[in-house]
Every structure is written in C-alpha cells, then in structure tokens.
C-alpha cells in the first residue's frame, strides 16, 4: 500500500460533470487525483475477504440482538424494534452497505464503523474512480460496484408484479444525496426496474398508503434517509401499517447503530477484523475513541489520547455512546486514509478511499482513487 503522486487530467472536472458527478469540488476540493493509492493483489484480496467476513458477522449480530431482545441497549424503542424484527423475519433484502476500515497494508483490516443504511460516496467509488483508472492507464481496480448493483436490483424486485415502480427519495437541498440517489436510480433503470422520484418531504399519507405527488401509492421505496429519522418522523407511525418494500430494510437500523460495535466485539472477541469496543470506557485504558450511536460523517467523534486528543463538532453530542479502541491508521504524506469497502447483496464489490489530515474522516475528507497491480 503506497500513496503515489499523480498528474491530474486537465479536463477531469468537465468529464465528471458530464457524468453527473457535480459535487467534485465541494469543501475546497472533494475529489483529488493529484495522488492515488497503489495496492498489491494480495492486499486487495485481504480487504475483499475482510468485507465479506464482516458482513457475515454483522448478520449474526442482528440475529443475536433480535433473539436476545437487546434493542434497548442500542437506544431502540419497542415499536422501532417491532419494525426491525418484522423485516428480519421476512428476510427483507438489502441492496448495499459500506464498511469503513483501518488498513496499513500489513495488519488485518479493522472495522471502524459500518455504514449499513445510507452509505454515500458511491458514485465516486463506482464510476468516477473507474473513469480515472481507464484514462490513467493503471492496471486494475477493486471495483465491480456498478455491475453488481444492476444485478442486485434485478434480483430484488423480480418478485414484484411487472411494472411496479420503485420510488426513490432523498431530502431536498442536498446535492450530494440527490446525485447519489440518481446514480442508484440509474442502476435500477438499467436492471429493468421502473422508477419514480419523490423528495422525502413531499411524500403524502392518504389514510391507507404513503403516496407520491401524483397520489400514487408507494409500494417499493428506496430511501436515502436514515431509519432512525424515518421512525422518529410524524409519518413513522404509518410504516407498520403498510406492506411497503423498503430499501434498505428496517433491520439495517441496527447495523448502522454504532452501539453494534460493542455487540460485535462481545460476540466475536479478538476477531482479527474487529477493534475492542464497549458501552463503557472502563476496559480500554488511556487511549480510545468515543462515538455517538447515530453519528454521521465523523460528527461528535472524540479521541481520548494524551498525545493526540481530538473532538469533532456536531449535533449528536447528547446521544448514547460507544467506546472503541484506537485503530492504527497509517499516515501518508500527512494524510490518514480510510478504506470504504462495499458490500452489494452478500458480496464484496469494491472500495473507495477517503483521506483527511486528521484521523477522523468527515464530510469534507477527500476522495482519492486507487489501483492495484
């Protein structure tokens, strides 16, 4: 694993904008191809295997929390748990997820967190860095996201009546979310799925069903909107009264909850791909990381460390927290890279790299392309 200097293509902005990747320069430069990461094939195999192993552990942890009725420890209310349990027992299928991993090329990849419900940075990983690879002449890339998403959409909705549309929703006034959603909608369209778009704020309730702006009932729904918000909102109470197919399914609400890091360590102690994590800091010594259960994009993360303390701002400060041992994140040219390893269905599907000048990856951390040889 190396960080290499690269020469940016003179017209990469125009090319990305033609693709629809419009937020490439947000926050002072989100996409950065002045550098790239090189891996060996064996390292890619190790990341791929770790992602599939963590996916297996995650599913076992969901089963455990449901059977042992441990939702309260994760801040999940009984009505929310009922939705989660119903979706799990119905085998409601998942489309995708992203494991964020600490990896230095030598030690096994370690799970920092699982973005199981509303993972973004998808278009960048699936499309943008692939275009970069093709034009850069580099050898290969761990990236089969695009084709796997299409295949997964085909299997997800083959049981629905022909022509049943899937509604796609995200919040208004967030360009990154809208573009990510439209990319996913594009892959669904290529799978032969009929799609419609409705902003999450525009969804209606007609007394029997959730409906779009035309009043059409939503029977299959992809929402780029976290389950914990969905269940808190005023219409959340209607979800149990409908037979709507929702992607990601409700059981993903458990896996996007960072409290699951403690459950995972309890169930699989000393697993090579896990870091020690607990609901209390008592077992972690003088150096550890504090994460709110529902923190997003690196908000309200605290690193407790005499030599390198850090606390990021954010709105999640009052939530319950999990305490995780510090991972060894390598430093290249003053940057901390974190591997985002993607799962589509049940298979590892590729990766993207975000790097930051601090050990915490936030919404402004840069996306750096990768290749392997």
């Amino acid at each position, binding site marked *: 694993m190396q960080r290499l200097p690269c020469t940016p293509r003179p017209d990469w902005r125009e090319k990305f904008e*033609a*693709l*629809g990747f*419009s937020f490439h320069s947000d926050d002072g430069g989100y996409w950065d191809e002045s550098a790239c990461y090189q891996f060996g*094939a064996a390292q*890619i195999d190790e990341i791929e295997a770790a992602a599939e192993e963590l996916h297996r552990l995650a599913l076992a942890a969901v089963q455990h929390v449901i059977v042992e009725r441990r939702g309260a420890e994760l801040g999940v209310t009984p009505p929310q748990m009922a939705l989660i349990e119903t979706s799990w027992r119905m085998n409601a299928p998942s489309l995708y997820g992203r494991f964020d991993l600490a990896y230095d090329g030598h030690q096994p990849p370690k799970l920092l967190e699982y973005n199981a419900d*509303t*993972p*973004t*940075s998808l*278009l960048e990983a*699936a*499309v943008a860095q*692939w*275009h970069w690879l093709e034009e850069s002449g580099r*050898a*290969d*890339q*761990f*990236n089969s996201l*695009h084709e796997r998403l299409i295949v997964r959409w085909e299997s997800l909705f083959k049981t629905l009546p022909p022509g049943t549309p899937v509604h796609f*929703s*995200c*919040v208004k006034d*967030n360009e*990154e*979310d809208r*573009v*990510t959603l*439209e*990319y996913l*909608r*594009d892959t669904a369209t*290529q799978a032969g799925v009929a799609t419609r*778009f409705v*902003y*999450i*704020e*525009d*969804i*209606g*309730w*007609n007394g029997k069903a959730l*409906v779009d*702006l*035309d*009043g059409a009932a939503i029977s299959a729904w992809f929402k780029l909107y*976290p389950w*914990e*918000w*969905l269940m*808190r*909102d*005023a*219409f959340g109470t*209607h979800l149990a009264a409908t037979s709507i197919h929702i992607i990601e399914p409700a059981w993903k609400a458990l896996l996007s909850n960072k409290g699951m890091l403690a459950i995972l360590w309890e169930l699989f102690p000393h697993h090579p791909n896990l870091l020690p994590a607990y609901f209390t800091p008592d077992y972690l010594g003088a150096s550890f990381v504090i994460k709110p259960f529902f923190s*997003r*994009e690196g*908000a309200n993360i605290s690193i407790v460390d005499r030599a390198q303390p850090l606390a990021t701002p954010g709105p999640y400060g009052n939530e319950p927290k999990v305490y995780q041992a510090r991972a060894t994140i390598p430093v290249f040219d003053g940057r901390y890279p974190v591997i985002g390893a993607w799962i589509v269905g049940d298979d590892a599907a590729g990766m993207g790299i975000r790097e930051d000048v601090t050990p915490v990856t936030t*919404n402004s951390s840069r996306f750096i392309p990768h290749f392997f040889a």
Partner: protein
Amino acid sequence: MKKKRARRIQLVTLGTVILGACSNADVPKDRYAYKSRPECVQDWGETHCENPPPGRTGSAAAAYFLGPRFNSIVETPSGKHIWSGSAEIPAINPDTGQSMRGAVNIARGGFGNSANAYHSSGS
C-alpha cells in the same frame, strides 16, 4: 484479475438530472390542483378548471390543472353552490358525497423533519 470490468460503465439517466426539479414547491397551495383536466372537470365542471399557466413548460407546475381557489363559493356542475373547502378540509361533492380529490386531501410533510438538524442523510 477478476476485479476488473470487461466493459465501460454506461449511465442512462444520471447526466440528465436537473437538480431541484419535481418539488411540490410548484404545487399551488391556495387552490385545487389536478394531474389531468378530466379529473378537474369531473369535480368542478369546465368553467372552474384552468389549464396550466403558460411559459413554464418543463417545470413540475406545468403538469397541474387548476381548480377553484380555497375558501370561496363555487357552483358545481349540477348547479349547486358549495363552499370550496380548504387545503386541510376539502369540499364534499354534493352529488356523490365524496371528497373533491385534487392533490390536497393528502397529508404531506410527515417525513423529513429529522433532517433539519443535521448536515446530510448520507454516511
């Protein structure tokens, strides 16, 4: 290597997206709105139904046919004068006993409020 694709990525719709379109911000808030003229005419008759405003082709509003304004007295196709109702309480058709449909007798805004306090729904 098995990870590498054998073909180029094709995107069929993404580059054509116009961000900000398809919002209900364009749906009139002070009157009935319908997706088709026959639906409007069935509720209110020809004289109370207007075609979409000109000059907005391509916008979401261009799809809406406009019925009567709320809180007014309207003569129905059967010649009865009724209160036109409000966004919250749509008028009842005196001949059928059904609510006037439009796009207004649907509660909206019940999702999305949790997002107001945060930066992004993504992670």
